[in-house]
């Protein structure tokens, strides 16, 4: 890292420290790591969505290389409980037991010297099962005639939630009312690196060491210890370089449990690398169905919203976030950045014969934002007002901050209307109207939303998930040569934390980021943390690193002052030095470190015996979360012959509070945006009525490529959060939230002249063309 014109501390954009390693191919991912004597695992997976498992016949002579649940006695099932009333707990065995509940569920583990040989074994195992009718549609999953996935349950639902404001009087007073039935597709998160697990038993330490591609090594450690019946000291999780998480790696894996158990049993290291077929059938996300009604007055001011929502949560509740992270949040996210007086909302987390859902970047917000923002545009069309007008009529104004909305969410700071005004001003809307008047099917769409990030104990305790985040800790140590070592329990897998946390340290201590080593991804080396998720790392770990560095600065100052024979009140720590405030005199932090470690005879009496290493904790107060927010504005052109959509222009006005590294924030927004475009236009994992996945290769499951993402114009506002160390806000997911809403609003604006409207995601060519043809049929 070289000195940049903008400095190196908080708010500067130095290049990423980790990039030299990645760009030169020196990153180390699970698939790069081998051990002597290592065996490879291939899983025999269920070819059928719902069946009673009768027998697995192992290949003759190879019985000792194939393991079913019966061979792994003593390992526990995965149970992701919730404290929400009425939650039904699923028992997920690490390998199928008695039943299979989705295509791709692991039934047996086959081990061999190579993955290919392990796959050979899996191919000749014989499954004997009794097929059961599959539950493939969340809308009928809860009907009394539906076969039960979990037979002790009364219905196929993990949870139902209700909020029952009285909206019955709104018909009489509203100037406009719209009802829409909307659907988002079932998606697969697709990090470039899939999952991978390498498990080995260390007989000296009596410790299970699992190298795994995870976002949350410490949570995995606790979950794994629990399932294996080991104490927490007997499990060490190493999460090396990880090629993208997005929520897909925020889970305790059945494969982790199986590989660890096999490594113990076989006395040899065991590795499993997920392939793309496994990835596309292992976990899903985001399948929402809404029937939503909204009422507004003549000016567009919202009077109330009623929403009936179902989320297809799949067959099991994943650990630790559970099966209802999406559906149960719909009611609390629906008001979005708006002032909403009344909300009636019913949600169901349906249980179906599909892979479990996981929280995917944006979590419930992408679907909820889509429902709310397209409904607002429908209201605007009915009222004959512009989409920006209806939003301005309802956005929480800056003067109301901090603002507590009707569901109790507290927005910390911001000027939501200003972000909208800036986004609209960046687009020549008059020109689009003129093109529309000339017959072009081009349209303009908006989405405004806020993103709660780094929400902590006060929010999650009500959920009662297995891991309620508390205080975040960071460890800081000055080495004898003055190098600063930071250890954090969060994990960086694209967020650039090795750089931004070094910037935070630089901000406090003035040590050059090149002299700051950020250690993460190893439970043996780092403080316990719930990990990297929920747009929390920069707020939580950033705050903890700042606090640890502050405490370290105090100790350094005391020693430095003594070395200069002045009072501690007459020095300050800056630029990597302890400086006298009255003269130019200084000693470097490296001088102080050398004194502590090598010439302790020179230390002053009464020196802090804790030395130059500090573990400090941090939590914002209040910890209800930061709210970054954004307005996305899109110009889209629709080809009415094919239904194809071209994004002509894309503007994002984003407020992430203090941007610790604006360049990295831009990257976060852009990356999220590409995924949001995938949600809007491409990605779809359909299942047939038998519960068979129909997009099991990347030729069928379309991901946006670089050429499918337009040049986005990014604009930042920086309204500080009053509650965080530097005023920073969580911003990791924002880019993935807005695109479906903004893009479909643009499409629907383009199609308004034809009387057509797209309701379902993705807005694929066939769906767009079908909407156009349906409108033509109505007109005819």
């Amino acid at each position, binding site marked *: 890292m070289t000195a940049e014109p903008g400095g190196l501390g908080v708010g500067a954009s130095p290049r990423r420290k980790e990039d030299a390693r990645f760009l030169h191919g020196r990153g180390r991912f699970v698939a790069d790591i081998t051990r002597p004597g290592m065996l490879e695992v291939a899983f025999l997976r269920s070819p059928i969505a719902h069946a009673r498992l009768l027998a697995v016949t192992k290949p003759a002579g190879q019985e000792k290389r194939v393991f079913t649940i019966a061979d792994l006695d003593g390992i526990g099932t995965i149970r992701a409980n919730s404290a929400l009333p009425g939650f039904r707990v699923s028992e997920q065995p690490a390998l199928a037991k008695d039943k299979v509940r989705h295509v791709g569920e692991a039934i047996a583990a086959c081990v061999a010297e*190579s993955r*290919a040989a392990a*796959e050979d074994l899996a191919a000749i195992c014989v499954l004997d099962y009794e097929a059961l009718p599959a539950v493939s549609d969340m809308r009928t999953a809860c009907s009394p005639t539906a076969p039960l996935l979990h037979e002790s349950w009364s219905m196929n639902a993990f949870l139902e939630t209700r909020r029952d404001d009285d909206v019955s009087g709104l018909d009489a007073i509203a100037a406009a009312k719209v009802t829409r039935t909307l659907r988002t597709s079932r998606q697969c998160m697709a990090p470039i690196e899939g999952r991978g697990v390498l498990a080995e038993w260390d007989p000296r330490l009596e410790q299970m060491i699992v190298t795994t591609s995870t976002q949350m090594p410490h949570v995995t450690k606790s979950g794994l210890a629990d399932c294996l019946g080991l104490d927490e000291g007997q499990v060490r999780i190493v999460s090396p370089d990880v090629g993208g998480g997005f929520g897909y790696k925020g889970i305790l894996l059945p494969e982790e449990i199986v590989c660890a158990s096999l490594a113990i049993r076989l006395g040899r290291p065991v590795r499993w690398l997920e392939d793309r*077929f496994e990835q596309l059938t292992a976990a899903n996300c985001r399948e929402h169905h809404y029937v939503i009604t909204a009422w507004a007055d003549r000016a567009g001011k919202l009077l109330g919203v009623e929403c009936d929502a179902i989320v297809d949560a799949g067959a099991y509740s994943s650990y630790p976030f559970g099966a209802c992270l999406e559906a149960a949040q719909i009611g609390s996210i629906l008001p979005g950045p708006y002032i909403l007086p009344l909300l009636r909302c019913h949600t169901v987390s349906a249980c179906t014969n599909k892979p479990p859902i996981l929280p995917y970047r944006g979590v419930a917000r992408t679907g909820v934002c889509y429902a709310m923002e397209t409904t607002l545009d429908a209201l605007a069309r009915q009222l004959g007002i512009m989409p920006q007008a209806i939003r301005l009529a309802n956005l929480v104004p800056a003067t109301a901050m901090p603002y507590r909305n009707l569901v109790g969410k507290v927005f910390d700071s911001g000027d939501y209307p200003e972000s909208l005004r800036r986004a609209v001003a960046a687009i020549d809307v008059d020109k689009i109207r003129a093109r529309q008047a000339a017959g072009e099917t081009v349209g303009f769409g908006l989405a405004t939303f806020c993103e709660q990030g780094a929400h902590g104990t006060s929010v999650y305790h009500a959920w009662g998930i297995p891991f309620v985040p508390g205080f975040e800790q960071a460890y800081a140590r000055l080495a004898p040569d003055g190098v600063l070592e930071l250890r954090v329990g969060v994990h960086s897998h694209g967020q650039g934390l090795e750089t931004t946390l070094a910037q935070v340290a630089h901000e406090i201590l003035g040590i050059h980021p090149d002299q700051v080593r950020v250690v993460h991804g190893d439970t043996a080396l780092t403080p316990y943390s719930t990990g990297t998720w929920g747009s929390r790392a920069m707020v939580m770990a950033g705050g903890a690193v700042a606090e640890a560095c502050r405490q370290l600065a105090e100790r350094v100052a005391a020693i430095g002052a003594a070395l200069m024979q002045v009072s501690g009140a007459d020095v300050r720590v800056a630029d990597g030095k302890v400086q006298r405030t009255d003269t130019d005199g200084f000693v470097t932090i490296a001088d102080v470190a050398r004194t502590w470690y090598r010439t302790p005879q020179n230390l002053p009496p009464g020196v802090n015996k804790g030395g130059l290493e500090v573990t400090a904790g941090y939590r914002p107060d209040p910890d209800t979360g930061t709210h970054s927010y954004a307005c996305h504005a899109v110009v889209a052109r629709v080809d009415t012959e094919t239904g194809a959509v071209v994004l002509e222009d894309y503007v994002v006005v984003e407020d992430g509070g203090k941007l610790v590294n604006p360049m990295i924030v831009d990257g976060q927004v852009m990356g999220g945006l590409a995924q949001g475009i995938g949600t809007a236009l*491409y990605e779809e994992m359909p299942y047939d009525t038998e519960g068979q996945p129909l997009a099991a290769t990347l030729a069928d499951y379309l991901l946006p490529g670089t050429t499918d993402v337009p040049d986005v114009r990014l604009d930042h506002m920086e309204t500080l959060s009053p509650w965080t160390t530097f005023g920073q806000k969580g911003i990791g997911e924002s880019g993935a939230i807005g695109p479906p809403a903004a893009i479909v609003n643009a499409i629907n604006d383009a199609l308004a002249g034809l009387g057509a409207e797209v309701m379902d995601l993705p807005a694929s*060519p066939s769906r767009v063309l079908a909407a156009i043809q349906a409108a033509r049929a109505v007109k005819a």
Partner: protein
Amino acid sequence: MKPAVFSYARPKSWSDAVKLVASGARAGAGTQSLGPLLNLRLAQPDMIADLRHLPDYAGVVVSGGVLRIGAGTTHAAIEDGAVPGRTGEIMAGVARRIAYRPVRNRGTIGGSLAHADPAADWVAVLPALGGTAIALGLRGERRVPLAGFVTGIFETALASDELLRAVEVPTLPAGVRWGHWKFCRKVGEFSKVTACVLSVPGTAPRAVLAALDRPPLVIEDASALLDDTEAEAARIVSAFPELGEWRRAVAQTALRKAVAAVKQP
């Protein structure tokens, strides 16, 4: 997703290659389609005969109004101008939009044609250009018209003991009009429908409608399509009742667009 065990042979002569194929080996060229099929274990051949080291496997020879293109000529070579003249110009335009450059660097015209994926570009385009596939078997070379070479989904006129040696296409005059339109949802994706129209002065225009989950539909005399495009496109597409509404609509659009390109002044 690792292939089942197979043995690998690298024949040095065409006669060796033919013997291997006749004995059941699967021919491999750029393996851009075969590779994924092996990994998915949808193909589990006992042996793969790697053709890439055969003499004259790649390259273009011009003689007597005919361009003989070696089956191993890569899409990238064609994109970069390996085929001369107006024919080369047309083919380069097609090659440029096959998948992605890394695929084009390895994928070959013969491999793509012999694999006979209905959505593949050369499967659609070569019948429109006219010409001949050169099959090589134990009894020597056999000539098969390109218009009838692909006979089904992943099926061709090649006998089980034959290899595709080369394709021959005519050197087209400069005045030829060419229309080619395909629909991909994203760059690099397989086509959802492809239409081609070739109009050589003095002869009837030829059209192909392809990538519709069947072998290409070759219309040797497409005069009617050029004369009354709207009605004729609808008539042609009505022969694909198995397709969904969107696919049929886009197929008509494809024909219209290809005709429009041919008629463009």
